[in-house]
């Protein structure tokens, strides 16, 4: 923790926001996997891709989620996490189109 304690608990709130986001990504990945594993070979491949994306997202989020309140979000981390989520959406679109 930093020496001067912030009465608004800003670092703690930010850490918890990252943890909620990790939880949401996990739930969505499980949903994508459930859909993918009913869809033959393409579905299995896309599920594997979604799990890889999940791993990347968790790896990116982790330092901020357990961080010591360093007030410095990396632009690259934020962009990469956002793009991972957009990628997850794209995987979902392909899964639905292939299932039609």
């Amino acid at each position, binding site marked *: 923790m930093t020496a001067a304690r912030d009465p608004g608990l800003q670092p703690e*709130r930010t850490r918890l926001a990252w943890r*909620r986001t990790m939880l949401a990504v996990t739930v969505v990945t499980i*949903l994508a996997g459930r859909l993918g594993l009913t869809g033959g070979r393409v579905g299995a491949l896309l599920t594997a891709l979604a799990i890889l994306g999940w791993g990347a997202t968790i790896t990116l989020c982790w330092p901020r989620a357990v961080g010591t309140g360093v007030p410095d979000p990396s632009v690259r981390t934020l962009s990469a996490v956002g793009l991972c*989520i*957009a990628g997850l959406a*794209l995987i979902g679109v392909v899964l*639905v189109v292939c*299932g039609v």
Partner: protein
Amino acid sequence: MPSSHRIITTVWQRIRNWFDPDELRSVGTTPDYRFSLANERTFLAWLRTGLALVGGGLAAAQFLPALPLRHLREAISIALLLLGGAVAIRAIDHWARVDRAIRLDRELPASRFPAVLAVVVGLGALLLVVAVLAGALGG
């Protein structure tokens, strides 16, 4: 032609800024860290909004029964997924713009996006109500 070229250059510049911390740090002064953290949490809240839409799309694809209109279920699902992806991409851009504004001590960027998103989601819900009612009365 020149204007379309300019748009492409602007978009490319913005995308490059997302991955270039020095570019962002080069403007203005480092703000009070509480503002930065608030901006970061807003970004994360938008990401979770996007994830909720993506999750909704994935759930619609596998848990909704077939609707009276052919492929309506798939259309709803794809619309939700695309909307979720767009929300995530837009969250990055908005974060970068707000960060720039607080560094330069300027007004925060105004945005129509939340209102548009709310109207789109509301209209979508209304459409679904009509589809379900039509199915119940017609079927």
